């Protein structure tokens, strides 16, 4: 035995664990985004506010921003209102029944935005399901134009983002002690009062976090307004894309990006001031609890009012119903949730019969049966090469994000280092900064180093996007892992790497796989970065999808949609099955 243990600097280990991620983010995220922002104030090496003058001189950009904010706000509001009952019901269920309900939320969460937006084009079209339904019901005599309107955009946006709202609220609601509303009942509160005075205030952090997540995502959205909206529903991100891809005015794109970024940051700052950012992770913050003064009195009165109104409504119900109500699980609630889940899943499901139709009109009901669109898809070299590329990019991006993300997850869960919150914020920044800004910044950066149009560029870009998901899933896996097993292994004589190889790794292997699958799915479905950096000829699947769908709406896309939907469905089932296997 050696006399003294070898000297190992304490700082070395944590630093080594975070270094790859920090370096990657600095080069591929911070630098490009920073450069884009600088570009907006520098022109030919000198400082200028010309771009901003241009931005504010015409009302177009401000108006677009206002429309963007309006659409995002309504989307957030509707997503929360629709998502709340789903999250409420799902959080109250027992394990196996819960996973059955949540599957549908996850399925639509992971189904490509493109597929879902395309599904709405088909649904809302002149011969689409909705028009046919209204005609059949005699509510209208001729098919109406529902596409390319404010309503269509809203439906598409809410459909796209409600799953995010549900999942965010769910993470908070699952931590609310169900005994609390029950305790309120024993203390004399009627069900409505118990809900509004006890449960609802406790679920507020989830509501707020869900609202801000949806809002921020919506502000940077372009797929839905582009595909379902008209000229009047143009959103700010579409202007940025236009500036980059058509006008090639990068500096101006940069200044619009700044406008977008400022809006997002203001939202976050206000959120932090009012509720505290820590609520985003589902913790009760001091601020929500501590708020005093008039606001609290108003809230108190409002909640009391809502409570007594609900109680009057319950009192109208037949007595048997009321009993179910107090168990927090009633028929009307279930019905509402089924309707909402139906709304979330049906568009993508309807793609399936349409893709097998014999006639090429994308109408409802589908006429005949054929595999011609699948044959067309398989015969097309464009679709085939895009698919192969998506797989390659997805695999490598997922691997890379695992490599840089997993050590950080270990550090965040196990390590005793200062600044964990800061590190977590940094890791999650690709989710907070609007995707379009990252994409444009990367595009600019890649074009200066010759990475545009290469698979490597896409892999690097997607790695940055997928890493936050990897860190989040791995953190969840590691939190469930009993560290004492490692200690036991070491007490039995295993060295650290032996412990890792024989004990830790086999136990978390399923978690690692599921996190890999989530990373892969993220890359596989990524459009924004691919839109710019994929280059002209060899695109990825989402890019190819986008190019096709913006060009013309063809039934081949329905076939592709079906394939994507089924593929993601299988992927989610696997990943979720693996995740649950590790968490028991």
């Amino acid at each position: 035995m050696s006399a003294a243990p070898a000297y190992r600097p304490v700082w070395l280990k944590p630093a080594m664990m975070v270094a790859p991620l920090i370096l990657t983010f600095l080069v591929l995220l911070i630098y490009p985004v920073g450069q884009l922002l600088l570009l907006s104030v520098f022109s030919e090496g000198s400082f200028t506010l010309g771009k901003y003058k241009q931005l504010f001189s015409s009302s177009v950009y401000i108006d677009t921003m206002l429309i963007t904010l309006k659409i995002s706000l309504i989307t957030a509001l509707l997503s929360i209102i629709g998502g709340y009952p789903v999250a409420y019901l799902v959080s109250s269920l027992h394990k196996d029944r819960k996973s059955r309900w949540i599957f549908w939320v996850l399925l639509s969460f992971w189904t490509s935005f493109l597929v879902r937006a395309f599904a709405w084009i088909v649904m809302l079209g002149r011969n689409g399901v909705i028009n046919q339904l209204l005609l059949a019901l005699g509510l209208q005599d001729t098919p109406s134009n529902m596409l390319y309107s404010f309503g269509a955009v809203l439906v598409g946006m809410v459909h796209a983002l409600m799953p995010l709202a549900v999942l965010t609220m769910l993470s908070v609601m699952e931590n609310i002690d169900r005994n609390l509303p029950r305790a309120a009942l024993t203390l004399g509160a009627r069900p409505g009062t118990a809900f509004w005075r006890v449960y609802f205030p406790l679920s507020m952090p989830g509501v707020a976090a869900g609202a801000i997540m949806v809002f921020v995502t919506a502000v940077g959205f372009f797929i839905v307004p582009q595909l379902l909206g008209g000229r009047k529903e143009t959103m700010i991100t579409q202007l940025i894309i236009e500036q980059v891809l058509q006008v090639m005015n990068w500096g101006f794109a940069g200044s619009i990006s700044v406008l977008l970024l400022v809006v997002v940051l203001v939202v976050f700052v206000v959120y932090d001031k009012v509720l505290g950012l820590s609520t985003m992770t589902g913790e009760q913050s001091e601020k929500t609890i501590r708020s005093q003064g008039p606001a609290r009195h108003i809230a108190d009165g409002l909640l009391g009012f809502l409570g007594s109104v609900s109680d009057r409504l319950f009192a109208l119900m037949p007595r048997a119903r009321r009993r179910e109500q107090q168990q927090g699980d009633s028929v009307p609630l279930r019905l509402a949730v089924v309707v909402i889940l139906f709304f979330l899943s049906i568009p993508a499901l309807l793609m399936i019969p349409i893709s097998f139709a014999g006639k090429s009109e994308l109408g409802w009901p589908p006429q005949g049966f054929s595999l011609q669109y699948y044959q067309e898809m398989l015969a097309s070299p464009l679709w085939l090469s895009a698919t192969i590329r998506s797989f390659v990019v997805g695999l490598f991006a997922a691997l890379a994000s695992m490599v840089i993300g997993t050590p950080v997850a270990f550090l965040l869960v196990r390590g005793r280092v200062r600044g964990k919150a800061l590190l977590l914020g940094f890791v999650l920044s690709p989710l907070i900064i609007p995707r379009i800004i990252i994409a444009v910044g990367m595009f600019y950066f890649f074009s200066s180093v010759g990475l545009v149009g290469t698979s490597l560029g896409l892999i690097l870009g997607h790695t940055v996007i997928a890493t936050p998901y990897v860190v989040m899933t791995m953190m969840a896996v590691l939190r469930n892992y009993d560290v004492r097993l490692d200690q036991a292994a070491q007490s039995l004589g295993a060295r650290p790497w032996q412990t890792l190889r024989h004990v830790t790794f086999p136990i978390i292997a399923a978690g690692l796989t599921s996190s890999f699958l989530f990373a892969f799915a993220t890359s596989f479905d990524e459009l924004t970065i691919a839109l710019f950096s994929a280059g002209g000829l060899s695109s990825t699947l989402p890019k190819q999808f986008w190019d096709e769908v913006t060009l013309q709406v063809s039934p081949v896309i329905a076939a592709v949609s079906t394939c994507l939907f089924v593929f993601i469905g299988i992927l989610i089932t696997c990943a979720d099955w693996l995740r649950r296997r590790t968490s028991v």
Partner: protein
Amino acid sequence: MGAQVTSIKLSISGLTKRYGSFVALHPTDLEVAEGEFLTLLGPSGSGKTTLLSMIAGLSVPDGGRLLINDRDVTYGAPYERDIGMVFQNYALFPHMTIAENIAFPLKMRKVDRATATSRAQEALELVHLPHVAGRFPKELSGGQQQRIALARCLVYKPSIVLMDEPLGALDKKLREQMQLEIKRIHRESGTTIVYVTHDQEEAMTMSDRICLMNGGRIEQLGSPGDLYFRPRTPFVADFLGESNLLQGAVTQAESGQAEVVLAGTGTAIRASTYQPLSAGAAVRVMVRPQNIVVGSASDQQSFTGRVLDTMITGGLTKLYLSAAQISNEPIVLSFPTSVNSQDLSVGSTVAFGWASSDAVAVPEQS
């Protein structure tokens, strides 16, 4: 118990609950008098929590009747029952201060703000925590939260306070302290309490009556002394306190005395009995470890055994004996630890015995 007339606060008849084909509670009758401290005791899955949650109105019975203050509330909502409940994890509302938590039931009863505040303060004084009104639940220790949960129940003077393993999360020392505290509050407030626990010592310490449950049925209902000294079934004898249960058959029984031949050994012993037994009935003879005496005396039944093990558990020393004369299983006996008791070394032979009044013949369950 004297002959004074006490009113019945809670009356249960034929109450039953099923989950699918599993019967969580067989039809059960139970009455609780005003001011009584009744404990539902039993292992997990015995139906005690099911019964409590039906009393609280948190689950709906499949049959039977439940009266609180002579009012039928079998299918009534919790808020119509005039009950208070202390939950296992206290269920204090984390977003309200302690004062707001305690005032909550008063607010629900539309008590005006000033009265509510002063009554909340009184309740805080009752649990000796008058200074925490402005704090939030998570700023208090487990024991303090426990007392607040109790104060929140007592503040509106419900007919019955239900407590669901309220001390389960506390460590031993704090638990004992809180047992005394709850007893004091029960005495001072005169409330009727139905208390659930799986800890037999806790039940013995606190209760006026214990309702021992097993397999969804009431096994025995009576005072702690009843259950301890006069168990009606081997389960009761085994669950409450330690005991030796010797298998045997009655040969003769009259006026509270029985003669039992022990199974496998043929040794005849005398035992007390509190139930009518007929000759031939299979019984268990219960002898408590502390009632077995080392050495022999004239009025005792005496046997000899070989020492298998001795252990000092603190105030008591336990002795494990092998005594083929009376049982195949080791006999355990205990006595106050003293310096002199150390010479009972393993392997030595000792004489032991007990007074026949300390042996109780309990009929085997059929």
